[in-house]
């Protein structure tokens, strides 16, 4: 790690203000940031410790939803009785990610900002447009098994590696952001992460002078919740493909199908058209394929990751088949 000074931010707005300096990073759990600092992928000269700020609570919202503070650990979210009861897809997604040790430290805000696992991003001696704008993308013609098949650009094919945000995307959660002046704005999780386009270093909506303070979940939507993660180990591995689903089936037809996908893109992939294919229709294989066709209509593989396209289709089919069986 390069030398840095460690300061403690007394409030979210102070923390937000500190991030106006491009060499300052906020640190909470630190599980991703310190990892990258040791590799000198991140080289801040100042760390602002926000871990003791008053953003570590889970509270009910007036409309019956849930507000998860930015500093709530992944563990605290996953084990919270209301999350388990009303938003099991979120608990499942978190529990499918990382390890207990990491989840005990990792926070809601930090996890939303988790950076890609692209092999070339994490090696400072390799060209990477995300880390070193204009240097090129090594992954496109390199080892790209983990990489994206949706929403890629000729600048970057990295994936967002997290699980939590995929479930939040299915749940249509909102990210709350405090600005340096103490005012707040909110962004749907579905819009929080960005596609790489020509600016792969911009990964999300968070700007300088801002800090995430919370994520709110809407009132419980009911339905059956699924988080299906396909990975190369049975635990402790990043998703090849993951599917977060909130499904309701009444009288044999889909009445709700909120679907989000991980491992496929630079962001949790949500497209309302995928679920819309299913609504009002009776479940069958052909229908599942139709939904997968919408998901994958613009999919493009880069050789090693071509398999993600059929795998995404099959994983979606697995989840929908399971939902149909459970509803029977």
């Amino acid at each position, binding site marked *: *790690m390069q*030398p840095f000074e460690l300061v403690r931010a007394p409030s979210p707005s102070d923390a937000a203000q500190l991030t106006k300096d491009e060499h300052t990073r906020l640190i909470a759990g630190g599980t991703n940031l310190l990892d990258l600092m040791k590799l000198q992928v991140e080289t801040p000269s100042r760390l602002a410790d926000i871990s003791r700020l008053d953003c570590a609570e889970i509270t009910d919202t007036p409309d019956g939803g849930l507000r998860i503070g930015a500093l709530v650990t992944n563990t605290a979210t996953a084990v919270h009785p209301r999350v388990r009861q009303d938003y099991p897809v979120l608990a499942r997604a978190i529990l499918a990610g990382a390890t207990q040790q990491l989840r005990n430290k990792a926070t809601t805000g930090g996890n939303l900002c988790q950076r890609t696992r692209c092999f070339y991003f994490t090696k400072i001696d390799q060209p990477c447009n995300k880390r070193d704008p204009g240097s090129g993308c090594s992954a496109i013609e390199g*080892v790209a098994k983990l990489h994206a098949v949706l929403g890629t650009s000729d600048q970057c094919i990295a994936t967002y590696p997290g699980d939590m945000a995929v479930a939040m995307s299915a749940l249509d959660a909102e990210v709350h952001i405090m600005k340096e002046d103490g005012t707040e704005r909110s962004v749907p999780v579905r819009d929080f992460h960005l596609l790489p386009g020509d600016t792969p270093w911009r990964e999300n909506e968070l700007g300088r002078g801002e800090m995430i303070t919370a994520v709110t979940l809407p009132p419980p939507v009911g339905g059956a919740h699924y988080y299906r993660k396909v*990975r190369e180990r049975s635990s402790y591995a990043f998703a*090849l493909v993951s599917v977060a689903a909130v499904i309701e089936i009444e009288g044999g037809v889909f009445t709700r199908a909120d679907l989000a996908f991980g491992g496929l893109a630079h962001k949790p992939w949500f497209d309302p058209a995928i679920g819309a294919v299913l609504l009002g229709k009776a479940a069958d294989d052909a229908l599942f394929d139709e939904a997968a066709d919408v998901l994958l209509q613009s999919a493009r593989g880069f050789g090693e990751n071509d398999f993600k396209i059929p795998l995404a289709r*099959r994983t979606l089919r697995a989840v929908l*088949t399971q939902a149909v069986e459970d509803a029977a």
Partner: protein
Amino acid sequence: MSTTRTENDGKARLDDMKQGVLGEPLPRIDGLAKVTGTARYAAEYPIDNCAEGVLVTSTITHGTVTRLDTQAALTMPGVIAVIDDSRLITRAVQGTAGEAPQQAPVTVCYWGQPIALVVAESFEQARDAAKRIHVEYDASPNPSLSPDDVTPEEQEDDTVSQGDLEQAMKDAAHSVDVRIATKGHASAAMEPHAAIADWDGEELTVHASLQMLNYNISELADALDIPEDKIRLIARFVGGGFGSKLGISPDVVAASLASIKLKRPVRVVLSRQQVFQCIMRRSETTQRLRLAATSEGKLIGFGHEALVSNLPGEEFCEPVLQSSHFMYRGENRELMLNLARIHRMTAGSVRAPGEAVGMPALEAAMDMLAEKSGVDPVQLRLMNIPDKDPENDLPFSSHKLAECLRQGADAFGWDAGPRKARQRREGEWWIGTGMASGARIHNTMESRTRVTLSADGTARVETDMTDIGTGTYTILAQMVAEMLGMDPAAVRVDIGDTRHPRGPGSGGSWGASSIGSAAFLACRAIREDLAARAGVAEEALDLRDGKVGGGRTLVDVLGGESLSHEGHYKPAKAQEEYTAAGFGAFFAQVRVNHFTGETRVDRMLGAFGFGRVLNRRTARSQFLGGLTWSIGTALTEALEFDPRDGHLVNCDLAEYHVPVHRDVPDLDVVLVEERDAIASPIEAKGIGELGMCGGAAAIGNAIYNACGARVLQFPITPDSVLASLPRDSCKLLREAGAMRGLA
């Protein structure tokens, strides 16, 4: 009193001993130190004024370092020096080399090669400074990076051509001709390579994480160009090796050079990424198997060819065919091993070099032959066990494959009925079983150890042999306790220090049988002294519980004196007249997800014949380790190299997938009783590697039996299963009525 015992009469004596502790499941004697965190590993010795070193590694693949700009680094707080001595080694030493590898790191042969060392007061200062060294290179254009790009070198010692295999393939009632690929592996021992070197002006003391101090001391002396007697190497606890610590690594030489130059102790610990990128890889392989059989399944032809790779100049060549030479009958034989010279990191020993990847490929092919011939897979192996080595007609020293197959099948509950893929389904999961044979060649190495029976009736055993988790501490205590008739708790085991006699080193699974034999010989010499004092023949000497013949105590017989002998074991010439190997049989039940191609191992069993069991508990643990590695080889482990600069891409434990707890189910181990008097004086053979020599194929074959996907590569990842699934799988499913809920 001290004499050296060198003869090896091969006569079984251990079964006549009376203490009854050898073979017993004694808990490991170093267990308490390990569970309390008080066992010290190389980097953990509290040494005053110790500076910290971090290696700088190359960012080109092949070429020359033209300039090392250290200016920025040297002005950083805490930075003491940059060491770019031409004696630095560019790679780890191959096992048993006994001399330095390529030095002079200005010549770069692979991406990630060490080129210098930064030394600072603190680790963080050194790590940061190592990134600030500006290196200029003269890069060579277009280095060869893929084994397919070059004309390989035939390894003529491995070539066998007997009879006419092509004709046999034509004549065969059933034949298999298949190509199978395996990806490279990393040892990934949990303790990163580390050294603390301390030069006091006269002598160099190095605490290091090494497997074979007996060779390592020569390698370090050669690298530094100082005499061996000025060097003391210490490795009392080693956090795993699996081949990666057979020879000295760049940290050891770098720390030593820095200490000599700076006249203060220096610690160098490789980062996990450096361990991956500049120690050893197991070569990837592409193999071709040809099996020709009669209508009953009897082999008449056997072909095994393999292509592996290594850096230019490295002698090591993954010995893929090692056990294929004698595994099965077949009078028409073609075996050939080829080596491609490419600029990827050094290829070397990773647990069970050769058989770890050769046996799974062979056993996958055998499964295909079993299917074609309609012979039960266990029966097919049984009927093809040769009576003697099929290539050189040597007898086997002992051969327990048949017993392993039978006992293993019995313990597993193997169904010898007709086999067909895709017969059992639970929900989304196809369930199937598979089996494979296993073999690992047996070797022993020259070894010395000193055993002292003290006047107080306790004993001490001293050698530079290491315990890398295998159980050396414990089996040495048991051997001495058995031979001298005492509680193992009365035996002090002092190992991992080159001040003691040279052992065989931990590697090649020869450690226990070799050092155990040396200890046996030393104890026998002590017994002769005791017998003389007691006035009986050595053969008649009855030592038990510290008493001689149930009467006088050892203390009494010793009369205030101590007895000390060095046991010197040398492999007997007679061993060369036999083919010696450990054998095993693997059985697995897996489930494969119909939708996603994910595989889970439900249960796995291995049955092994490996000579005398020295400790049932630690022996079983070694096999559990081998089975776990079999799971990794089968399903998860694969090194990936960049196609443009050859660097190891997945160079950490997040992306190189060693199995985690959840990948490993309950495992069963059957220890098949065996005494192999040819193999070693103590009738033992190796354990550490045998447990993974074929096991991956049992899983691969079970995957085929479960879902019908015959994946011709290892590891068998979800994508490769999906790519190999029968195309009509959904239709079949519906016919089977398994897709409940689907129209």
